[in-house]
Each structure stands twice: as C-alpha cells, then as structure tokens.
C-alpha cells in the first residue's frame, strides 16, 4: 500500500505542475481582443483547475500512506479514482484546451493529463480492490 501511496503522491504533484508549464499562456500565447486587450485561452483555466485537483489528490496519497483501517483505504481509493477521472475530464470535456492542434496545450498538456489521470484511476482502483481482501493493520 505504501508503494501505491507514493505513486499517488508523485502523480498528484505531476498533475498539479505539468499544466503550469505546458499551457499556451506559459509559452507566451494569449488571445488578443479587438480592443487590444489580451485574455487567457481556455487551456489556462484547465491548468488552474488541475492545480486545484492536485491538492486533494496529494492529500489522498498522504492519508493512504498512514491509514491502517481497510475501510479508510477503500474510501480513499474511491475518492482518488473519482478525482482521477475528473483530471481526465477537465481537458477533454469540462473545460477543454485550444482547438489548434499545433498549440502546446494540445500536443503536451492534454495527453499528459489524460495519461496521468488514467494512471491515477488505475492505481486507486487497485487500492480499492486490494483493501477489500485485506485485514486492518495493527497500530
């Protein structure tokens, strides 16, 4: 379970950090309105949302490392899997990324988040399955 907890913490950090450096705004690209004002593209808001998702996922990993009761592990696993699914949904359905396939958010940020989200869901589901057949650890 310790290995899973470490993996969740590592993935949570990557989920929070990668979008900050791979959204279009980080590469100096913004939308310029007719009045000359520059506004962020939607991939920037996806990056912000992923940063917000990284924090509870980090907490899930941390708590899992110290949890001894199998019910706690199971619940943490379910929560991690749901949050992992939201990590995938942010760039694909909920907010999205830029339309132009040449943009860095399409080439790097979106695939990275889908991959990390899939891994997060898989590890958390494994935690849930494992916790079903486990005994509570002694304090």
């Amino acid at each position, binding site marked *: 379970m310790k290995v899973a907890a470490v993996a969740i913490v590592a993935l949570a950090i990557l989920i929070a950090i990668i979008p900050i450096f791979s959204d279009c705004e980080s590469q100096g690209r913004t939308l310029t309105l007719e009045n000359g004002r520059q506004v962020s593209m939607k991939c920037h808001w996806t990056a912000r949302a992923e940063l917000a998702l990284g924090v509870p996922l980090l907490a899930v990993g941390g708590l899992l490392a110290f949890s001894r009761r199998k019910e706690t592990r199971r619940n943490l696993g379910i929560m991690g899997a749901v949050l992992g699914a939201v990590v995938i949904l942010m760039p694909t359905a909920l907010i999205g990324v830029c339309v132009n*396939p040449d943009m860095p958010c399409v*080439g790097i940020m979106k695939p990275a988040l889908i991959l990390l989200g899939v891994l997060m869901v898989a590890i958390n589901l494994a935690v849930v399955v494992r916790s079903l057949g486990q005994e509570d650890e002694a304090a």
Partner: protein
Amino acid sequence: MHVIRLAIRNAAGNSFRSWMVFFCAALMAGFVISATLVIRGADDSLRLALERLGADIIVIPEGHERRLESALLMGIPVHCWMPDIIVDEVAALPGVVAVSPQIYLSTLRGAICCSLPELFLIAYDPATDFTIRPWLELNLDAGLALGETVGGSFVYVPAGEDKLLVYGYELDLKANLEPTGTGLDQSLFFTLETAYDIARLSDEYAVKVMDIPPRTVSSVLVKVGRDADVHQVAQLIEAEIPGVTPLETNKLFKDQREQILSLLHSVVALLVITWLLAMALIAVVFSLAVNERRRQMGVMRALGARRGTVLQSVLIEAWLLALSGGLAGIGVSTLAISLFQRAIIAVMNVPFLFPPPLRLAGLSFGALAMALSGVTLAVLVPAVRISLQDPAMSMRE
C-alpha cells in the same frame, strides 16, 4: 492449482521484491513496445506517403527539393513555380507514359477568411491526374467538381459551419483520406479549376490575394513505363530540361530514413543495456528470495513434493509477476505513444503513424513474450539451484 496459490502467496509475502520484478518486467516490455511502435510507425508512415504520391518521379523547380520534402512530410507549405510548357517537354521524353501537373498553395495563417490554420493546398489536373483519381474513384462516385475538396485525415469542417473557408472561398469537404502520419494528413486537394476560382475571388473576399502566376505549375508528376528505368528517365529529364530537378520518389525522404536508421541503432543499444540490467536485477532478487525460502522448499520436498514442483513454484511466481508487469508496461507505453503522437513528430522530426488494432495486438503479444522469456532466463538459475538442493541440507540450514 496448489502451486499457483503458493506462488501468489510468495509474491504477496514480500511486496518490495515483487514490485521490483514487476517494474523490471514493465520496463522491459514497455521499452520494447515503445521502440517498436515509434520505429515501425515512422517507417510505415514514410512508406504510405510514398504510396500516396503514386508517381515515379516528381519534377520541381531547381533548389526546392528540401522544401518539397518538408511539405510532403510535415505539411509545411511550399511555393514554387515553373513554366507550364515543362509539362509537355517532360511528356515528350522517351520512357514517360503519363504526366500530370500540380500547383502547391497554402491557406493564410490565422486570417479570418480561413477556417483552418496554415494548410498545404494541392491543386491537380483531373484530366491527366493518376495519383488522386484512383483514390477518388474508390471513395467518391464522381470526381471533384468546382468548389469541392478532399482533405487529409486532420482536416475537418469547424463546428457550427458546413463549409471550409479558404481565402474567403467556401469549399465543400467531400471526404477525408486515410491517415499517413505525414504532412499529407493536413493537406487539401482540389482541382486546378477550383484553385483558379479561389484565386480569382480572393481579391474580393480575402485579406490577401491568392497569387497563381499565369501559365505556371509547381510540379509535374511523372509515371514511367514498365520497361523504362526510373533512374535513367530522371537523368534524361535533368539533362534535357534546364532549371528543374527530377526527384525519384523511391529516393525521397533520404534524411528521414537515415534518421530512423540511426534511431534504430541507438534504441537497440539502449534496449540491450536495459534488458541486461533488468535481468541481472531480477536474477539477484530471485536469488535472495530462494535463499530465504530454502527451509520452506526443504519442508516441501520432505513432505513429498518433487523437484519439478519446487522449480514450478518459483517459475510460476516469476511468470505471474512478469505477466502483470509486462501488461502494465505495454498498456502505459501504448497509451503514452498514442497520446503523444504529435509531440513525437515534432521532437523527432519524422512522420509517425499509429498501427491499426490488429497489428498493435500482435506487437503487444510479441513484447509480452519477450518480457516473459527475459524474466524466465533471469530466474532459471536460482530456480534450478533451489530445486536441486538436498531437502535435509535445506532444512538444517
């Protein structure tokens, strides 16, 4: 059945060691499948691009060879012009059985008149064409009419619109070509008549005029007779017609082929090193494991288990870990390669085509088999050693 249960219990008993073997197997299988997918994908992509070209020789104005390759491979538009009289001059040469002119254009980058970012546009002559027409005949009942186009696999009509806008001209996207992983996937094909119509109306509808110099073409596609030698015909074109370069299509993309070859050499070297290290690590881990389990094995033998059963229990434990690790490595690597296709193309500067599901399944099976055999080889020595040990000695130690 008991042996399998024993192997599972042994694997679960020391999770650190099991994770080590799992990660080694994942690394071995993941590395093999990634390397195969990237190299085969690049190679397939080049081959498909050459097949799509369908000509034996492409005649272009002198000095545009590299830019044409970039256009065909990476979709970076090229603009080159030569007098259209060259079409007749090439057709008149011995060994040439068909010629067809093409005009290369591009959409405006980021202009409001165009619904797509900078795209490579290829205008062909339907009367003489022998490269696009075979595909069109298979997929569309009639050829392309005025204002109609077919696009590469990446070309789509933007949401909320029913036509593609090019220089303010509305094009009807009739179909998409099969993906090749090259610049052809982001190209638009239409007739010369449509190209001239776009150019004529661009003065009125576009922020910038589409300029097609009169009585010019960008390239001439040449088909050589069965009895003629392509290289000799190319040499003849070079000698007879000044100011042009004949590109033999089977020699196109030389730089990319060399790049794939050097990549293959580096990958094989890395693969060998990784495999040796992973196998050594697995061998050490299993040597430690069987040493710790000498008593257990001794008791098993004393209770009547045969040498083969002991050997089986160690090998099954290794296979279970290798199978799960290998499947995880293949799954993660395949997902990563499929998601990062565009980044791979951009970083490596070679085209890339993801294989169809059946071939992917075959490659995955091969990678898994290689990981299983690697792990078996690494585990064989400690497994045989423990199975040959005398039970009384094992229990006493």
